[in-house]
Structures are given as structure tokens and as C-alpha cells.
């Protein structure tokens, strides 16, 4: 029935050939139009739905952040529908909670649910905590632009003005650009009106700190005065208590003493100053304000980028003359370059394919028939992609480029058979109607075309069983490839016959083959003879090559993805916890200095610490270093990166992580998982957790196969601890709350009010000056007023000293945890995990309230292993069944399948020659190879079977069958292989993934084709009898052919 349907389609395609051509043109136009509408991005979205909540509390220690902020938030969001994990990290002055949802959760619903729950806890948070912020909807690769603003040499503009310029003028303008979701500003000084209390004067005048705070707070107030209604008019009444200037603030009264007012200026210095910094920025060692712009997911990157650039260009003339603007990052550059490179390769590939076809056919008509399949298949593939919601990115583009060589194959096979059929037909005495020849020849190869497509689909299927990040990255590539291949089959069954009918049917076709094809046949004939005479020799050689290659495979290096050839590097630079922002800045400057005269690096931009709203939540000991590679550096990118890493490592105590923007962001997304085995110990007490962790570490250390064993490090950092002496405090009548308030105001500073200035609110803070709090002695000397009116020192009621405290407290699923992690070597993972579990069960006693969970990669691996195993077996079975029904003989199926491993040989050798590293891209190359190898094998065996059916003797059938097909096979192989030549030899942006793939296909197709052409005949020569299809089936096939022949008669009428 299916056959009938396909015949009908084919018949109509030939009969309505002009209609098909018109349809193809329409689809092409529609496709081109659609492509311009599809969003461009660098990568498919790969992060799971996740909502990040950040709460900032300046100066609070990790342990307090945990109890006062993280725990309430965690418990409120825990148990939301669809939540898989709640992870949190309590750092100095910052609580970060990540709520990870199911893969298929709707991110907007998830955010909504989290927001609702957060409202309930907002009131419970400490007073000085900023309200919880949910990070805006940004994809991991959402950073589209970065600008650095610097001041020229002796410029007038201060860093404070610069910050304000960026903050006020630019930020709001850029945020209003459609598609921009977040603007983060690093560096510069944030302006504050500071009331710096002089402790000496406090003592002299017997003023308490709280009184000063109250005075500063009370100095600024304005209230509505209602209306004055008189004489039929209504006048608005305003109380004008707003502070207009610093002088106003200075003149505010603190208290009356001996009839004289004590003003704020008598006890404090009031000044405009910079707020405490938790982050900073520099460009080439010069202080800078860095603007980072993130886009919303699923928005076209180049469009947003261009709009933002226009906005900046428009505003630029309004900046002071000494302000320099440098664009330090532009993701669209990579996208542009990648797309330019890939389309360049595509064009070159098309040219090469055309040249090959012309050489073999020496006929522009045939070239048109085959080449028309390329754009059409790719465009139909793109239309499919659009329908399935896939955008254009490096992965989907990669899939398409890989498909170039293959999409033309179906058309070649169809056209070649048609051409040969028509030629033979013309040579015969009484030729059949040419359209019927077109129909017959198309039917002849249809099975091979369909089967090879179906086989490619089946071979690809296991890739779609990958879940998680891997699945999200590779599925779009696989889909893009499959869509194009399916489209090409469709084209080969409709447009190609139609074009054959138009361009070839009524032409006088040259009887002789072209120079190249005759040469190929002449070259092949003796080789074929050799393989048929000495099949053992050929088979032994093939087997030896296979065994050799199988031995090489385990020694090849493996990478997940090849490194992207980005010019923008985003490096993280981690200093020891407890290091101050100054030193982090200094390290950045030191690096900038050391790279200053190096022409390989265009600029060094350092973003130290964090900025509000920044999702990284980095402490002041961490800096992000953005470095742009220059064009000479790109010539040998690896060496440039290596040199950079060395420059980093020269700085003592600096741990760098050097890599491109994309890999950096992928690291961040994948960072939850790192080791094969993670033993998570949950429990309330950090010290207890640590001791259990040590116990477990020691228990599993002797287990064979356990390597990289590590107990999660806790790096305690030095703190200043103020231990209140409750007894002494009671003696003075001071409560802990009073003490804490004073300590907080004096040391951390307190924002008491805000003044509007140029449409912006500026904080008024009260604190002690730096000099009055920069040592233990100074802290001890902080004056305290007791309820009895006495003035005492903090040291009288508290002990100020150094202590150690946690640097960060991590939690998961609403409990503190410590992780013992390990990898496994020389043993299989499952049994090691089993041993570990047994050993821990036996030897480690857990106190009440503590429990252990086993996690890590091994879980995911076991799942994926099982999945892939099942899918692979299914795929193998499916392929065998397909093959069998295609050639109708079990031994022949085996013969074709034997052909497949041979495809490996050349691919692996070419990997070995080009660096010996295998990536997933290479694997996809192998899959492409198998597709071609199957097709080649099928074409041969199919032809043999037809010869047998015609009653030829085995040897003769094999010999002629092989010779007849050699041109089609060489053509498909050469187009597939050489079409990828541009990809294989050019490196650079966009080709990273495609290059290893192209290398595999290029190398593999040569051996595969050569071996196919020799090994299958050799197999037939050696084991010929077994391969003959059963006579009954031949009869059946003939019946079929007969039926279709009668059908095709209709066409001519």
C-alpha cells in the first residue's frame, strides 16, 4: 500500500513536473523568508528552569545570613510543585537560594510561585536586609554587550560622577530597549552623604551614638500639609523639611545641653563620600565603570545588540569630553563570525560538490538536478526547525552543514540511475518512453534511498535519549540534521524525478561516460578483479585494519565539546577567602601590567567582587577577568591561552580558570555536578558534619578504585569577634539589642534617610570614620551611653578579639551538608559505589538527625547508561531488520553490516593524525559515515540482486553490478567527503564543532568507499552461494517491478 502511495507520488511528480518545480521555488522563497525571521543565538538554551533569589545584608556573617535569611526563604519555597532541588549558599552579607525546577516546568509559572511564597517571608527578614530579589530572566549565555567607561588621564570627571552618569543616564535608556532584561554596573564610586561621628567628641559632650543617628534621621522630613481652601480656590500645602545641602544636615540639632543646642557638625563630620565597595572594575589597570547588558532568552541577539549600540551612540555626545567608552564584549561578533564562516564553508562546499558532479557527468543538466537538492533540503529542514521551535545557533547550523554532503546523495543516486537508464534506453533498438524510464529508474533506487534515510534516523535515535544539559545541547543538532536528511529524501522522491523528466528525458544523452567516470571504471576494473580472485587477501587486510583501529580507540583523548574559538575570554580569578577587594584589584592590575605590552591581548578588563543584581554572587576575593584576543593571537589561540594562564599563575595565591565566554558559562551551569561519586552528609552542626566527613573519607579511602577522594574544604577565615559580657552589660543596664545597634551603626554604618538630588535618591549614612574602627583597640574604645547617663567603652562590656569563622555555608534541600567526593579509576563505578555503601553502613555510626545521601554523576550515568544501552540495542535490531527487508537475505545483510566497521577505520586514523582527541562532534561524523556506508553497501547489494534476478551467474553479476555502481558510489562518497573539505581545513569561530566532524567524514569516507568497493565483492566471491536471495523472493520482486511498470505506462498519457 505504501508502495502504491509512493508510486503515486512519484508518478504525479513526473506528470506534474512543472508544478513540482514551481512548488520548490515557492518553498525556497518561503524558507529564505523564514530564515531571516528566526532568532540567532550562540547556543541552544541548555539550563534547567531555575529561579535564583538573592538577599543582600551588608556585613552580616555567613552563619547569621544562614539562620536569619536563608533558612526562612528556603523553607518557604521548599515544597513548591515541580521543585527538584533547593540549593543555597550563605556568604558574607549575601544569601543566595537557587530553586531548581523540573526540566519541563514553565519558568514563568515557577517564578510566579516563588514570588508569592517570598512575600510571606519578606517581613521576617532582618531590618537591614534588602528586600529579596529574584534574578531577572536571563539565559546563561545572555550577556550580549559590555562597555567600560574610563576617564582620560587628568580628566575632571570623578569616578563618582562617572558612576552616576552610567547609572542614571545610560541604565534606564538601555533597559528600555526591547529584549534587554538586565543591566549590571560594576565599579565606580557610589555617592553617599556620610555622617562620620567623632568618638572623642561624643565623650566630651556626652552624646550617645543613638542620639546622633536619631538626629541625622530627623534632619530630613517633608510632609503633606493638606489643602488650603479659600475664596473658591484650592492651594496645596507643603512642609519643606527636605535637606537641601550638606550645610542643612550639619546644622541639625542633636540635643540641648546647658541651654545650648549641640549640632550635628559639633560631633560629626558631614561629607559626601563613596559607599563601601563590594565590587570594583578596571580596564587595562585603570579604574573603570563597567556596564554589562543581558538579554532575555529567545530574543534575537544581533537585533538587541544593534539597538543597544544605537542608544549608546546617540547618548555619547552628551558624555563629558574626558570620558572614554570602550566596548569590551560583544557576543554578536562571535555569532556574526560563526555564521559568516559557516556560510562560507557552505558555499565552498556547494562549489566543490558542483565541480565533482560536473567532472563525473560533464553535464550542466545533471548538476542542476543534484545541486537543487542542497538549498531545498536545507531550507525545508529549517522550516521544520522553525515549526519545532528551534532557533539558529551554532549547534543547529552545525547539524545543517553536516547535512550538506548527505542531502545531495539521495538526489545523486536518483539522478545517476535515471541518467544511466535513459542512456541505455536510447541506445536500445526500440526505446521505451523516456518518462517511464525515469519512473522505473526512480523506483529501482527508491528503496535504497528510503532505507538509508531511515537507517540514519535510527542510528541517531540514541542521541535523543540523552537528558539534562547534554541532551539539551545535542538534541537540536541531531534534529537539524535529521530534518534536512528527511527533507532531502522528500526532494529525491519528488523534485529530482521531476527535474530528470524535464531536463534529461528528451535529451540526447552521450553514450560514452565522461572522462572521469571512464577513468574511474578503468581504475576500478583491475582492483575488482583482484578482490574477486583473492578474496581472502582483501578480507584479511580489512580485518587487520579493523583490529588495529579497535586497539587505538581507547587511547584517544576525549572532550565533551571542542573549545570554541572565541576572541572573548572570561576568566575567573579566585584569591584566598579573606583577601580584601584592594588585593583582588591589585592582582587584576598586576595581570593587566604583565599583559600590557603583549600584542596578543587587546585589553584586560577586571570585574572584581560583585555588583547588586549580579547572579555570580562572587565575594571580594573573586574577580572576573575579561580579555580580548587580538587577531595575531587567534592564529595560535591555544598558545595565547596558555601564555595567559601562565601569566595568571605567576601571581602568588591566584587560582585562575581560563576559558572562553561560552565554556565559562557552561561551567557555571554544570557546576552542581563534578565528581562521579558524591556522598552528601546532611545534618545541623558544621563541626559534627566535618568529623563524620573525615570518618567517611577514611573509611572509603582503602577501597580499590577510589581516586581523587576529597572532603569538601571548609576554609575558615579570620574574623573580629565581639563577645558581649552579659554580666558587665547588665551592670550598666545595657541590653544585647542596644549593644548590637550601637556596634552595627558604628562599624557597619546605618542608612538613616535619603535625599533626592537630580531625580536620584542619595543615601545618608551614619558611621564612625575609618580611623576610629580600623583596629581592635579602636573598636574597644567605641563609646557607649548607658541608661544612667554614663559614657563607657565597648571594651567595658565586651571582649574584642580575633576568631575564625566559616567563609560560606552551603545547604541543600533545607539542611546543611558536607560532601565527600571521589572519582573512580580502573574499576567499574557500580561496584565501587556498592562497596562504599556497604563499608559506610558497617563502619560509620551516624548521630541522630544526620543522614547520608549518595549522589553525583554516577546516578545520572547509570540512568543514561541504561537508557542508551536499551536504545542502542533497539537501534541495532531495527537496522538489521530494515536491512534484511531491503536485501531480502540474511547473509547479504551481514555483508552490508560488515561494511560499517570499515567506515570507522579511516575516521579514526584521521582523528589520530589531527591531534587524537575525540569529541561528540567526531561521533556525529561517524554517524554521517555510517549513513553513507550503508547507502553504498545497499546500492551494491541491491544491484547484485537485480543481476541475479536477471539470471546472471554469481561472478558475472558481482563484477558487472560493481562496475555499474562504481560511479554513483564514488560520486556520493566524494561529494559527502569533499563537500566537507572547507570545514576540515578552516578553523575559527563557528567551525569548532564542525571541523572534527568534517575530519572524520573526510578520512572515513575514503577508506569506507575503497573498502566497500572491494570488500563486498570479495565477500560475495568468497561466500557467494549464501548471499543469493531465495528464488521465491526474486519472483515476488519481479512481480512488483512488473506491477509498477504497468503503472508507469499511465504517465505518458
Amino acid at each position: 500500500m505504501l508502495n502504491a502511495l509512493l508510486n503515486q507520488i512519484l508518478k504525479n511528480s513526473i506528470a506534474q513536473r512543472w508544478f513540482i518545480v514551481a512548488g520548490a521555488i515557492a518553498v525556497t522563497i518561503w524558507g529564505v523568508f523564514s530564515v531571516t525571521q528566526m532568532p540567532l543565538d550562540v547556543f541552544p538554551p541548555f539550563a534547567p528552569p531555575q529561579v535564583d533569589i538573592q538577599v543582600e545584608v551588608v556585613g552580616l556573617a555567613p552563619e547569621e545570613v544562614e539562620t536569619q535569611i536563608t533558612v526562612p526563604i528556603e523553607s518557604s519555597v521548599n515544597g513548591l510543585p515541580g521543585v527538584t532541588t533547593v540549593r543555597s549558599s550563605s556568604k558574607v552579607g549575601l544569601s543566595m537560594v537557587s530553586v531548581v525546577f523540573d526540566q519541563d516546568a514553565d519558568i514563568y509559572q515557577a517564578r510566579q510561585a516563588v514570588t508569592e511564597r517570598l512575600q510571606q517571608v519578606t517581613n521576617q527578614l532582618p531590618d537591614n536586609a534588602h528586600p529579596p530579589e529574584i534574578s531577572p530572566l536571563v539565559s546563561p549565555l545572555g550577556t550580549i554587550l559590555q562597555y567600560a567607561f574610563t576617564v582620560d588621564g587628568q580628566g575632571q570627571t570623578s569616578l563618582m560622577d562617572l558612576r552616576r552618569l552610567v547609572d542614571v543616564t545610560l541604565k534606564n535608556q538601555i533597559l528600555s530597549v526591547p529584549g534587554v532584561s538586565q543591566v549590571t554596573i560594576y565599579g565606580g564610586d557610589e555617592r553617599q552623604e556620610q555622617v562620620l561621628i567623632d568618638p572623642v567628641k561624643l565623650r566630651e559632650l556626652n552624646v550617645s551614638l543613638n542620639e546622633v543617628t536619631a538626629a541625622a534621621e530627623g534632619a530630613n522630613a517633608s510632609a503633606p500639609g493638606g489643602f488650603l481652601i479659600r475664596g473658591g480656590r484650592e492651594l496645596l500645602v507643603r512642609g519643606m523639611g527636605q535637606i537641601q545641602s550638606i550645610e542643612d544636615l550639619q546644622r541639625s540639632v542633636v540635643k540641648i545641653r546647658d541651654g545650648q543646642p549641640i549640632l550635628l557638625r559639633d560631633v560629626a563630620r558631614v561629607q559626601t563620600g563613596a559607599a563601601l565597595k563590594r565590587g570594583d572594575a578596571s580596564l587595562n589597570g585603570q579604574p573603570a565603570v563597567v556596564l554589562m547588558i543581558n538579554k532575555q532568552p529567545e530574543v534575537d541577539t544581533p537585533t538587541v545588540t544593534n539597538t543597544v549600540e544605537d542608544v549608546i551612540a546617540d547618548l555619547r555626545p552628551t558624555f563629558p569630553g574626558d570620558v572614554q567608552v570602550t566596548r569590551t564584549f560583544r557576543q554578536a561578533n562571535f555569532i556574526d563570525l560563526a555564521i559568516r564562516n559557516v556560510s562560507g564553508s557552505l558555499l565552498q562546499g556547494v562549489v566543490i560538490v558542483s565541480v565533482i558532479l560536473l567532472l563525473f557527468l560533464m553535464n550542466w543538466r545533471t548538476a542542476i538536478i543534484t545541486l537543487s537538492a542542497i538549498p531545498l533540503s536545507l531550507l525545508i529542514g529549517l522550516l521544520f526547525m522553525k515549526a519545532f521551535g528551534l532557533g539558529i545557533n551554532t549547534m543547529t547550523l552545525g547539524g545543517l552543514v553536516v547535512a550538506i554532503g548527505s542531502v545531495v546523495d539521495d538526489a545523486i543516486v536518483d539522478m545517476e540511475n535515471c541518467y544511466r537508464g535513459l542512456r541505455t534506453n536510447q541506445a536500445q533498438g526500440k526505446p521505451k518512453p523516456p518518462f517511464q524510464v525515469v519512473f522505473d529508474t526512480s523506483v529501482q533506487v527508491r528503496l535504497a534511498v528510503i532505507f538509508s534515510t531511515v537507517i540514519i534516523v535510527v542510528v541517531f535515535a540514541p542521541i535523543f535519549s540523552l537528558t539534562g544539559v547534554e541532551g539539551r545541547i545535542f538534541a537540536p543538532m541531531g534534529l537539524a540534521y535529521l530534518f534536512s536528511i528527511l527533507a532531502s529524501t522528500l526532494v529525491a522522491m519528488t523534485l529530482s524525478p521531476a527535474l530528470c523528466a524535464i531536463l534529461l528525458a528528451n535529451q540526447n544523452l552521450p553514450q560514452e561516460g565522461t572522462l572521469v567516470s571512464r577513468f574511474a571504471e578503468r581504475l576500478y576494473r583491475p582492483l575488482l578483479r583482484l578482490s574477486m580472485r583473492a578474496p581472502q587477501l582483501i578480507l584479511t587486510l580489512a580485518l587487520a585494519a579493523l583490529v588495529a583501529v579497535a586497539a587505538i580507540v581507547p587511547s584517544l583523548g576525549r572532550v565533551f565539546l571542542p573549545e570554541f574559538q572565541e576572541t572573548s575570554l572570561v576568566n575567573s580569578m579566585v584569591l584566598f577567602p579573606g583577601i580584601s577587594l584592594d588585593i583582588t584589584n591589585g592582582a587584576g592590575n598586576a595581570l593587566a601590567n604583565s599583559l600590557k605590552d603583549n600584542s596578543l591581548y587587546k585589553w584586560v578588563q577586571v570585574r572584581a567582587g560583585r555588583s547588586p543584581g549580579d547572579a555570580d554572587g562572587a565575594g571580594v576575593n573573586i574577580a572576573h577577568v575579561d580579555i580580548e584576543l587580538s587577531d595575531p593571537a587567534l592564529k595560535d589561540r591555544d598558545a595565547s591561552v596558555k601564555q595567559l594562564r601562565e601569566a595568571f599563575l605567576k601571581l602568588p595565591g591566584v587560582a585562575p580558570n581560563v576559558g572562553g565566554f561560552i565554556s565559562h558559562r557552561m561551567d557555571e551551569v554544570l557546576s552542581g555536578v563534578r565528581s562521579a561519586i558524591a556522598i552528601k552528609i546532611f545534618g545541623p552542626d558544621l563541626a559534627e558534619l566535618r568529623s563524620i566527613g573525615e570518618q567517611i573519607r577514611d573509611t572509603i579511602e582503602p577501597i580499590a578504585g577510589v581516586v581523587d577522594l576529597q572532603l569538601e574544604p571548609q576554609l575558615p577565615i579570620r574574623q573580629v569577634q565581639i563577645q558581649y559580657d552579659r554580666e558587665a552589660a547588665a551592670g550598666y543596664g545595657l541590653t544585647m539589642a542596644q549593644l548590637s545597634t550601637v556596634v552595627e551603626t558604628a562599624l557597619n554604618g546605618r542608612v538613616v534617610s535619603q535625599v533626592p538630588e537630580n531625580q536620584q535618591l542619595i543615601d545618608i549614612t551614619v558611621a564612625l570614620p575609618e580611623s576610629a574602627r580600623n583596629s581592635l583597640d579602636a573598636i574597644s574604645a567605641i563609646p557607649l551611653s548607658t541608661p544612667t547617663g554614663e559614657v563607657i567603652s565597648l571594651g567595658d562590656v565586651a571582649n574584642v578579639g580575633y576568631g575564625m569563622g566559616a567563609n560560606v555555608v552551603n545547604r541543600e534541600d533545607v539542611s546543611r551538608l558536607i560532601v565527600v567526593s571521589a572519582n573512580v579509576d580502573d574499576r567499574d563505578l557500580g561496584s565501587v559505589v556498592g562497596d562504599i555503601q556497604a563499608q559506610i553502613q558497617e563502619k560509620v555510626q551516624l548521630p541522630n538527625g544526620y543522614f547520608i545521601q549518595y549522589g553525583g554523576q554516577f546516578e545520572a550515568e547509570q540512568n543514561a547508561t541504561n537508557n542508551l544501552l536499551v536504545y542502542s540495542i533497539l537501534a541495532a535490531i531495527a537496522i538489521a531488520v530494515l536491512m534484511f527487508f531491503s536485501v531480502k537475505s540474511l547473509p547479504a545483510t551481514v555483508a552490508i553490516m560488515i561494511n560499517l566497521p570499515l567506515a570507522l577505520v579511516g575516521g579514526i586514523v584521521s582523528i589520530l593524525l589531527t591531534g587524537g582527541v575525540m569529541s561528540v562532534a567526531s561521533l556525529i561524523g561517524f554517524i554521517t559515515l555510517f549513513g553513507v556506508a550503508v547507502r553504498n553497501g545497499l546500492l551494491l547489494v541491491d544491484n547484485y540482486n537485480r543481476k541475479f534476478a536477471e539470471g546472471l551467474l554469481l561472478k558475472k553479476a558481482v563484477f558487472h553490478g560493481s562496475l555499474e555502481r562504481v560511479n554513483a558510489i564514488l560520486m556520493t562518497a566524494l561529494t559527502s567527503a569533499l563537500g566537507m573539505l572547507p570545514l576540515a581545513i578552516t578553523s575559527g569561530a563557528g567551525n569548532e564543532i564542525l571541523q572534527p566532524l568534517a575530519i572524520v567524514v573526510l578520512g572515513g569516507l575514503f577508506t569506507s568507499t575503497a573498502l566497500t568497493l572491494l570488500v563486498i565483492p570479495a565477500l560475495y566471491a568468497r561466500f557467494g552461494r549464501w548471499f543469493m536471495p531465495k528464488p521465491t523472493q526474486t519472483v515476488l520482486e519481479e512481480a512488483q517491478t512488473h506491477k509498477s511498470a504497468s503503472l508507469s505506462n499511465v504517465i505518458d498519457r
Partner: protein
Amino acid sequence: MKQLPLLSSILALSLAVSTPAALAHSGHGDEFQAEGGVNRVEVNTQTDSLLGIQVTAIEPAADGSGTVMIPVTALVEDNDRQLVFVQYENFYEPVPVTTGATQGEMVEVLEGLSVDEQLVTEGSLSLYAESRKTQTTEAAAPAADKTHAQADAEGTPHGHDTEGDMVKSDSSEATKTAEESGGMPKILLATVGGGIGLAVVAISLISGGRKKKRTLSEDPSSNR
């Protein structure tokens, strides 16, 4: 003989599954470890000042006694002991010290230091941190020049594990070749899978009549 689809997907699996472990590194709290020895650090006059490293000679006590007083900022806590760094010629050497009474910002050193030594008074934490960098961070550095540290030590053992595991899960048929090398199980497994595939074909061939086969033959293509 159905090695290839299997082999390919097994390779895909081992890559896809094993590498994230190698991929995810650094920047997330594992750059430094808590334990291990402390090494000396070479002096680099160009960058040391930028990193806040300051060296001052220890001054003799004002009262003429042999007491050694150093700023608290010079001390580094290394688990249970205290360290300072002292510059000897071209290196900053770690020196364990025993401290006594604290006087404000100064602390008395009972053992380990003497007057006139070139003490690192500020920036000693960076010098200490140099020895605390985790192995992976350092090891990744040379290895990563080619492939961005993804191919570092973790990746490869992983791949083997996966395969090993897979062989295990199919162990009933695989045990007889247990002595084969790490790379072989793949092929072995593939053969097993292929065998199953062939068996199914054979069964369908034997049991099913031709009619049945024809319907089967149409199935896959109609699935397209």
C-alpha cells in the same frame, strides 16, 4: 556484527556522560583546599607590591629585651598552627611560630622568629594561598592548553568507568571475556547487542511467514 550503531552510541554515551565532571571546574569554591604542606614562594618585585605584599625587618623591642613583636596581620592560621612568611634572598619562606600575648595590633612571638628578620607583614595570606591551590587547578594548567582543561585527568578514567559499568550490567554474557582490556568491552558489548539483533531477525525469519514479513517491511517506512 552490529557494532557500529552500538559502538557509536556507546562512545556518545561515555563522552556525554563522563565529561561534565571534567568540564565543571573552578570558580565555585574548590580552588583551594584546606590541608597540605606550605611551600615557599618566589619573590617577584613587579607584582608583589600590587598584591599588597610588604616586607619589614623585625624591630628590636623598645625595652631592649629580646622579645619579638610582630603585627597580627603577618600571621596566617594553617589549621592548628600559626605561620608567618619571612623573606630569605629570593624567596618567601613559611615559618611556623608560637605566639604569646597580644598587645593591641602586635603579638609576641615566643618561638620561630628573631629580630631583624625580613618579615612579610602584609599579604601573607596570598603567599599561603599559593600552597593551598587545589591540585586540579594547577594540574589543569599545563594539560588544558589544547582542550580547555576538559580532557584533564577526570575525564578519561570516567569514560572507562562507564564502559566498565555497561559491561557489568550485561555481565551474564560478558563474563567470559573479563580478562580483556579496557577498550574491548565496547566491542564485546556491541557483539552481544548485535547477536541479539541477529537472533531477533532469525526468529522472525523462521517463525513468521512471508506475509508477516511484508507487513513488517512496510512498518518502518510508514513510520517516517
